[in-house]
């Protein structure tokens, strides 16, 4: 999984022994101060609700730099989605030896068409994000695409610049 926005560049490899949790390593370059850290990460599915037409998830996330234990983070993220609608949120508190900061987002989306299994799936979304290093909330459009095992998400605003999320499932 690769992620890039105004605050950081990140590359994350993770493995899920069960659907309940995943473990992995995330290499992060902090674009605010230029620091680089590698985190050991743990994500845990706190709650999942399946219905015939929807799924809701709530996850706990945490990570720590094993080389410098003063760098770590923790947070929650969640989503609720149907084949047509999506909503999600996330909160992360990052502890850094220079300055602690928080990242928050909410995201809503709609699928303009319902593709079959194997088709290209498209979501038109809106995302609001705040990083306390940069101050106020920024709201911008996001395009999400996935097909097969590939996933890509692109967002842009003048304030937050590019928000890119790429994922491949092996």
């Amino acid at each position, binding site marked *: 999984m690769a992620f890039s926005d105004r605050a950081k560049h990140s590359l994350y490899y993770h493995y899920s022994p*069960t*659907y*309940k*949790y995943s473990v992995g390593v995330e290499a992060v370059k902090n674009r605010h101060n230029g620091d680089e850290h590698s985190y*050991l990460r*743990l994500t*845990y*599915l*706190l*709650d*999942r*609700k*399946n*219905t*015939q*037409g*929807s*799924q809701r998830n709530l996850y*706990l996330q*945490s*990570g*720590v730099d094993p080389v410098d*234990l*003063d760098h*770590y983070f*923790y947070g929650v993220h969640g989503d609720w*989605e*149907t*084949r047509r609608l999506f909503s999600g949120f996330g909160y992360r508190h990052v*502890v850094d030896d220079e300055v602690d900061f928080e990242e928050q987002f909410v995201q809503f989306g709609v699928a303009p068409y*319902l*593709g*079959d*299994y*194997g*088709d290209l*799936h498209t979501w038109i979304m809106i995302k609001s994000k705040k990083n306390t290093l940069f101050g106020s909330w920024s709201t911008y459009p996001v395009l999400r695409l*996935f*097909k*097969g*095992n590939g*996933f890509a998400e692109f967002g842009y605003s003048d304030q937050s610049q590019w928000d890119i999320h790429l994922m491949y*499932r092996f």
Partner: protein
Amino acid sequence: MKKLTALILLITTPYVVIADQSADHAMHQADVFVDGSAVDIDPDQIKQFTADLQGGQVAVVSVMGMVCDFCARGIEKTFKRDKSVTKVDVDLSKGKVLIAFDTEEPIDRAEIDRKILANGQNVTAVQMLNI
């Protein structure tokens, strides 16, 4: 103090929510499996799926929570590891997974249920069709 907090967070996260696992297991035990006529199957889809099959059986599995193509990929991968499985297809619109087995032996429903649950979804019904 920060180091201690970081270690505690990383190590204890799974145990903080252990009660949730128990609740999920209880829900799994309460699943009801329904045979035959209760399962809605599109005849054209079955015909297309079975066109190149030479005998065996097809399980039509109704699944809750399978709302996304990306999430259903795990189901396909899990069943394709089974050597008796020759083909897997997913119908997202009806929440069905079609699994072709090359054996005439009875298929273990509990195993189907376990594999779907391992991907994080729930089985509500299974119908077996002889080809």
